[in-house]
């Protein structure tokens, strides 16, 4: 039985703490039994600045669980849908594996599985199966830098809302996808 009631859950990644160790990526593969060569979350490396003042930082990159998701709009069978946890998931019984959601996603966080591996688009589920039991997602429990936090965005007293006050922003807000996953941008 579910210990935790569904609510609008979200995630914040603090890029100032992220060290780019890929532990979240590997923990996710182990937890969700993701197939070879596939990743639900990965590390994107950024190099920025003008010589000689250049800098480098890493970013955990995964599904942003948009509340106005292009992938859900694009899906022809309504297999991609919003869950009561505020996340975006795929119903395997409806999915035809057309790949339209992979192309529609402006964040490029979905990947198609091979046909013999089931052919579903591989994406982050925010580890709902763990949230229901009152646990934290695999990436958050693994993160050595404490750069990831998940929590109830609707609860004003939750720790995630204290992180929100530290200047968390949505990725590519101009797309008006209204994500539930935020980043605290890298500051030099």
């Amino acid at each position, binding site marked *: 039985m579910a210990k935790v009631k569904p609510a609008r859950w979200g995630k914040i990644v603090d890029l100032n703490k992220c060290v780019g160790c890929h532990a979240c990526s590997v923990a996710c593969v182990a937890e969700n039994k993701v197939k070879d*060569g596939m990743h639900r979350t990965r590390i994107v490396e950024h190099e920025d600045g003008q010589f000689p003042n250049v800098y480098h930082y890493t970013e955990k990159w995964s599904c942003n669980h948009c509340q106005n998701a292009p992938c859900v709009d694009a899906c022809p*069978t309504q297999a991609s849908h919003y869950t009561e946890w505020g996340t975006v998931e795929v119903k395997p*019984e*409806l999915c*035809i594996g*057309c790949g339209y959601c992979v*192309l529609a996603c402006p964040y490029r966080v979905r990947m*198609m*599985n091979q046909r013999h591996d089931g*052919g579903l688009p591989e994406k982050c589920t925010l580890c709902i199966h763990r949230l229901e039991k009152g646990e934290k997602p695999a990436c958050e429990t693994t993160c050595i830098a404490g750069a990831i936090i998940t929590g109830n965005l609707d609860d004003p007293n939750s720790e995630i809302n204290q992180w929100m006050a530290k200047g968390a922003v949505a990725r590519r807000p101009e797309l008006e996808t209204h994500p539930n996953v935020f980043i605290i941008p890298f500051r030099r």
Partner: protein
Amino acid sequence: MEQHLFTWNYLIAIYLFTAGLSSGAGMIAGVTEILNNTSDRIKRISAYLAPFPVMLGLLMLVADLHRPWNFFQVLIHYHVTSVMSWGAFFLLVFPIFALIFTAMVYFNYQGALRKLFAWLELVLGLAIGIYAGLLLAAIYNNPVWSNPLIAFLFFVSAISTGICMIILGGKVWDQTETFIRKIMPAKLQPEKWLPEQISLNFDHNIIRRLIGIDAVIIIIELMVISTLIISYMLRPTGDIALGAIITGGYYLTFWIGVVLLGLTLPLVLGILELRDRFSDNMNLIVSIAEPILVLTGGFILRWVVVYGGQLVYPILTFYS
């Protein structure tokens, strides 16, 4: 990452191409039937050919799915915000109505329903022609695809390739019929075992008329391509789009395969043909080579746009 770069492959390009062929032939069949003042032979060959390319394309589409055993779900679950869902509906009904119309034309049915099915063929052909480009244009985050002119370009190309399929189909039909008449003994002549209206008599005047129409459409297509390039230049993400298909990436395939071999060369051949610059033997070769070039160019156009559009995705990750 390379194996994940291309979500859609050449099967989608074939499917978009065949959808265009069917759309073009279907619209011509519908228009010629409704106006009823053009050659009966154009009407018949376009009605005969219209349903079949898209049926092949649908097989390609199912072959490309990663969960093909679930294919029926797209036909029973619809989603109004998804362009693909609309397309699935049109692609389900178009072959059915087009096959009925083909049977009506073949068996020379002259009832009241014939006009209705001609209108259906025109409207559904229009819908499929628009849908094939809109499927890509609706992906609004893609700098190459999210351009209304891509949809328009595919639509114009659908008409052009449809006309060329009619030229080739009519020529093949005519030659086959002549060949059968030559080898069959008098007892087994086609009139004995096929309906009378089978004979197309697809002579050179009809081909000339179709090549003339096609030349105009090719000029429109070249204008749309130049407008598309300007439209890319005017956009903030235009450099990425230009780099994928115009100035880099698949630019050689695009300029040589589409613009030179697929549009300019057949346009020149067609104009020379219309001005009677060829001998009779050359006429035959040109009237076959010209549609083959246009058809090849139409396929390469889909191929370049499908693959070139997916080239830009790794860059999108680094927007922020």
